[in-house]
Each structure stands twice: as C-alpha cells, then as structure tokens.
C-alpha cells in the first residue's frame, strides 16, 4: 500500500532527551477545567433559582466588607506563592528551596486566616440566613462552602508540599508538585473573585438601584 501519503518523521535522538516533569501540570489544568465547570454549574443554579424573583427589592444582600477583606487575603497569598514559585526556577543549583518553603507556609497561614474570617462571616449572617432558610440560602452556602472546601484541600496539599524533602536529581516525584499545587491555589483564588462579583457585588448594586 505505497499509495499512503508519507511524511518523514522527526529524527531527534530519544536516548539523550531530558526528563520531562510537566505531566502533573497538564493534569492539573484538566482538573481546573472540570472544577471550573462545577462552579459554573453552581453559578448557573444560582441564577436559575433567582430567575424572575426580585429578591433585593425587599431583602438586604450580604455585606461587602467581609468578602472584600477575604479577597485581599487570597490575592496577596497568590502573590506570595507566585514569588515562592519563582525561587524554584532555573537550574537545580540556583534554586532557593528554603525561600520557596517559607512562601508556602506564609500562604498556608493566609489561607487559614481566610477560613477563620469566612467562618466568622457565616456566624455573623447565620441568624438572618442559613442553608435551610430558603433556596437562596441553600445555594449561597453551597457555593461558598464548596469554595471553602477547595481552600481546605489546597491548604492540606500545601502543608504536604511544605514538609516534602528537598528533591533534586535522584529523589523526586515524576511531577513538579510545587508548581502544580500553586496552579491549583491560583485557581481557587480566581473562583473567589467570581464569587465576590456574582454573590456580593452585583446584589449590592441591585439593592442600590432599588433603594435610590
């Protein structure tokens, strides 16, 4: 069957190629895609349940100060973690593993602060709004606590990376755990940005529209 169209394949030598450690990051991008879709479904449910109901004409929406402080915490944690990631770039000899580890633990502390403040926010609002009050309460708490669950998972993974031994040429995982987990953490932060917009900022604007 020599009628089959042929193109000469690349003749790169295989045996001298470097070890590739990027599969973990590709897998994490896939995880992020599917998790993002989960949150999109949640936001879709939020708007579907709110459809044809003008809730903010009567009720006051959740206060803006908590989510904005939380946003500041998360965004700064992302910057810290990104700085830590950059300490690990370049050849193995010039990587500053200690600094990267410190950045990781600062991020963990900030994430714990996030969880504590969000817990206080729940406590603060609980008497007016609880998951079992009505459908809005159900979806509000489901979205925010699903995000909190992602934060918890992120913190646990970062704590795990934080106690990892330093790995180099002979002791290592097949993937790059630090950048993989950092990618996940940035994703969790971005989700919070959307939660702030959809669940806090827009309702407050709608409320302003009704009051004035």
């Amino acid at each position, binding site marked *: 069957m020599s009628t089959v169209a042929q193109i000469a394949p690349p003749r790169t030598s295989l045996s001298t190629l470097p070890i590739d450690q990027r599969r973990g990051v590709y897998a994490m991008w*896939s995880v992020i895609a599917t998790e993002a879709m989960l949150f999109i479904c949640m936001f879709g449910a939020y708007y579907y349940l709110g459809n044809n109901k003008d809730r903010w004409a009567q009720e006051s929406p959740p206060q803006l100060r908590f989510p904005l402080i939380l946003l500041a915490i998360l965004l700064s944690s992302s910057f810290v973690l990104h700085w830590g990631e950059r300490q690990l770039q370049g050849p193995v000899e010039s990587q500053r593993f200690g600094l990267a580890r410190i950045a990781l633990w600062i991020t963990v502390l900030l994430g714990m602060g996030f969880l504590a403040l969000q817990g206080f926010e729940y406590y603060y609002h609980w008497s007016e709004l609880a998951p079992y009050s009505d459908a*809005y309460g159900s979806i509000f708490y489901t979205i925010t606590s699903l995000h909190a669950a992602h934060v918890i998972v992120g913190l646990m993974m970062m704590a795990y990376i934080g106690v990892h031994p330093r790995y180099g040429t002979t*002791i290592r995982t097949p993937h790059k755990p630090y950048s993989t987990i950092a990618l996940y953490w940035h994703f969790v932060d971005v989700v919070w940005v959307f939660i702030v917009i959809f669940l806090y900022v827009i309702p407050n604007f709608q409320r302003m529209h009704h009051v004035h």
Partner: protein
Amino acid sequence: MTTISAAERLTSLWETPKTTRGWFATVDHKELGIRYLVTAVAFLVIGGLEALLMRIQLSRSDLTVLSPEAYNQIFTMHGVTMIFWYASPILSGFAVYLVPLMIGARDMAFPRLNAFTYWTYLFSGLLLYLAPFIGQSPHAGWFAYVPYTLTRYSPGLGMDIYALSLIFLTISTTGGAINFIVTILRLRAPGMAISRMPLFLYSTLTTSFVILFGLPALTAACIFLELDRRWGTHFFHIAEGGSTLLWQQLFWFFGHPWVYVIFLPATGMLSLIIPAFSRRPIVGYPFVAIATVLTGVVGFGVWLHHMFTIGMSDIAMSLFSAGSMMISVFTTIQVFAWLATIWKGHPVATASMYFAVGSVMMLVIGGLSGVFTGIIPVDWQAHSTYYVVAHIHYVLIGSNVFPVFAGFYYWLPKITGRLLDERLGKWSFWVMFVGFNIGFFPMHILGLLGMPRRIYSYRPGLGFDSWNMVVTIGAFALGIGILISIINLLVSLRSGVLAGRNPWNSDGLEWSSESPPAPYGSVHIPLVASRNPLWDDFDEEDDPDNDRVLDWGRLTPVTTALDANPIGLATIPGDSLLPLIMSIALFAFFATMVFQMVFTALTMLLITFAIGCVWMWPRDVKEVM
C-alpha cells in the same frame, strides 16, 4: 544479540510479577484494560437480565410476575447500570488497552491513576448494587426527576445510593478522562502528528473533554439532591423558592453530552474497523475527525430537547430543535465516510465487519427516529412513550453494543492471542441483529399507539398485547445472541487459532506488537510517517543504533501536542497497592455518607488524603539518571 538482552531488560522493568500482590498492585494498562472490559461485560449481563425480567412482566397484559415497586426498581437499575456502568466503561476499557499501543507509548501518562480509576469504577458499581441487598434500590428511572426523588416520595436509602454512587463514579470517569487527555496529547510516538492520529484517538480525546466539561453538572445535581434529601436545603422545594426544573436542566446539561460519550468512541472504533476490512484508508479522514470534534462541541447545545414538554418559549424550542437537527449532520458525515470506504474498497466479510455494518444500519434508524423526536410537535406526541424507548435503544445498542462486539471480534485476538470462531461470530451477529430488530422496532409502533414508558403492566384490549409479546421474544433472542459470543470467546481462549501479530493485515500501530503484546509494547519506540503506519513502506521500528529502546528505566518519550516532535522522556511509575487502598477508603467514605455517618465519613476522607500523600511522596529514582 543486543535486541534480545534489551527485550529482557525491558521485560524486567515493565512486567508485573504474577503474585497475589502483583495482581492487586498492577498498573499495566493492558491488565487494567482487560479488567475494565470484563467488569463492563459483567454489568452488561446484569443489566440485560434485569431487562429480560421486565420483558417477562410485560409480555402479556395484567401479569403479576413483578410488583409495581419491584418493576420500578428493576427498570431504574437496568437504565443506570447500562448507561453509567456498562456503556461508557466498556469504551474506556478498549481505550485503556489500546491507546498506549496505538500511539506507541509504553503505558498511560498516569498508570497509578489508571489503576485508581479502574478500582473506583468497580467499587462505585458495588456501592450501587448494595442497594438491592438492603432492599432499597433507586426507583425513579435513570434520570431521577425531582420531586419524586425527594424524601417525601422516596423515603428509603435508594435515591441516596443513586446520588452518592454517581458522584463516586464521576471521580473515576473524570480521572480516566484526564489520563486520556494527557496521554493522547503528550505521549504519542514521534511523528504521529495530530493529523495522522488514528480516528479512535480523536473520538476518545473528544469524549474525554466532554467528560471534563459535562460531568460536573451531574455532580452538582447529585450534590443538590443529596443536600435536599438529608441535610435540609431547599434547591428543589418550590414553596421555599426552589425549582424542580433545576434538576432537569442540570441533569440534561450533563445527560445529552453523555450520549456522545457513549457514542463517539464507538464510532471511532467503526472508523478503524471498516477501513481495515475494506482494505483501504478511510475516505474523508479530516471530515470524520472534524465531525467527531464538532459532535462533542455541539452536543453541549441540545440538552433542552429532552424537556420540550415542560413549557418553554418558542425561541428556546426552535433553537434547541435546530441544534438537535444540526448534530445529525455530523453523524451523517461519518456514516457517508464509512459507506464510501466500503464502496471504494474491497470489503472482506468477517464477523467484525458484520457487526460494524449492522451497527451503521441501526444507527441510521435510531438517528432518523431521533430527527423525528427533534421536531417539536412529534416530540410532544411521542414524549414518554415507547417511541422514545425504541429511539434510545436503537441509538445506544446500534451505536454502542454492536460496535463493541465488532471491536471484540477485531481486537480480542490481539488481547488474548487467539482468534474467535468466525462462523459462530456470524451466527451471533444474525441472532443479535434479528432479535434486536424484532425486539425494538415494534416499540416505535407501541409508542405511537400510546403505550407510555415505565408502566409495570397494561390492560388487555388496548392493542398492546401481541406487539409486547413480539418485543419479549426479540429481547430474548438478543440475549441468546450475546450469549453465543460470550461462549465463542470462552471457547477461543482454550482452543482458538493463534492470531499472530496482525491477523487482519490492519494498519494501526497496535498490530505491530505480538499478540498478546509484551508488557512494554514494542522494543523500539516506533516512528510514524503516515496515517496508516503498517500499510506504508516506512519501517516504524527501524533503529540501528538502539536509540529508541530506553531500557534503563520505565521511560516513554514525551512529544509536542500537534507535531509530535520528541521533547523529553517521561518516567512511568511502577506497580503500587495505593490505588486500590485509596479506592477502598473512598468507598468507605461514600458508603458511610449513604447512612449519614458524618464523622466516620470525614475520617475516611482524611484517610484518603493521607493515602494520597504516601502516593505522591518523592522517591529515589537513581536508575533513571
């Protein structure tokens, strides 16, 4: 001389020891693929027996073989089993076995994840089949509409098991999809550019993306259902501002793409089998590839056609009706490509080809009845009648079961090393084909006569009796046909003719290895120069300097996503018991959640995380450097 020792070194690196521990710890994609296939066929048999029970009950009017509640539970278990635990996993089984061989990789990108997804698939099925043993099976059909599934109308644990075992299964399916995406995009043999991939890889890749973007809707719906049932929320309670249609929207946003998850890999298999037995490359390769991808994309825009009867605006109905019709164009492109391939080729009548051509015929019938139900007035008439049952079975059996059997007759010689009996295979085909059409075509008529689906019995004198008897006879014939093939397989394992490397003289890389393949695939990583590597005059394994043996570690080349230029070597982890242990911990989590044992469940979740930590702990890999 060097080749022999290289093969020995590769074997010692890649072979799983034949011990009890090895059996549980293996991460070999070939072993796991076989397990997927065997487990999925077991679910096919279980679901098939449930169907036969239903057909006995419906064979005549006013029978009392099954009580109404038992009938409800059995048709629900039949649907859930077939759609979730047979139809998609069987295709995963083929893909797990074949994808690394087709792309010339030594294993999947994440072999331990591969083992984990198999075990979670098995355990989620066990969780579902816990339900009949505690006497509380789900009973609301495979799409479980609220409010019937809320605690007020379904107080038992059946619907909790439904929701939680589905969430459990989504973990398995999503993990598998990620594994396929990274494997297909990164581990293809040097030279296998994206324009030269076997079409089965296009369909598996599309399906994997559809899973990534479609399954979260099911997860969200099941989370809402479980929260509403046991934890006091109000997503589906209208009095508290909830919406019962929210379930339908989320479920079908997942549900219709899922149809393509079940359907596309099977068409990908046909796109390999039909050209192989027509003795020529497929006609219109790029069109088939693009049609496959577009089916996956447009499949996300048609879900409302399952809900035309709920009352919606004309513009929404028109858009989704048009979308549903448009998607048939893509399927038509594939069908015409297959027909043209047969027309222009020199077809060989093997049992596999019989199944392939038979499935194309039934796919066309099922597709046409789908076009009918895409027309809104017809849909209003046919909705929730046996017409829809006929349609779904023509599409699913025509586009899944028959291609899967074609795939069995085509690839089992590669997997077992022995050919199946052709004569018995053709008998099996004819019995299945005739039985299927006798069994399901009259359902169209029953539906148009007005027989609703999901009724446990019917009164005499409505004109349903004789057609239902015909349907029952056909269903049993279909079961006998499947049984013939299973017997054929068991006989061939013992006394089949040895297959050799390439019994069908096919074109794909999977046929260049021995049958069954060595644990490492091929000694030299192949180079690919065309779409039909074994039909061109380029020698894929020509490697005079032993540059592509990679026998000093568990390694496989990493290539670029589009052009497949080699850029690195991937280290492939070895056998591990952790995937199995982690699946058991997750099973314990979901099983305890069914009984709302929160603290035990949370403990199980923490244990799962701890196992994951051990799994990912850095290891000494001195031999690589």
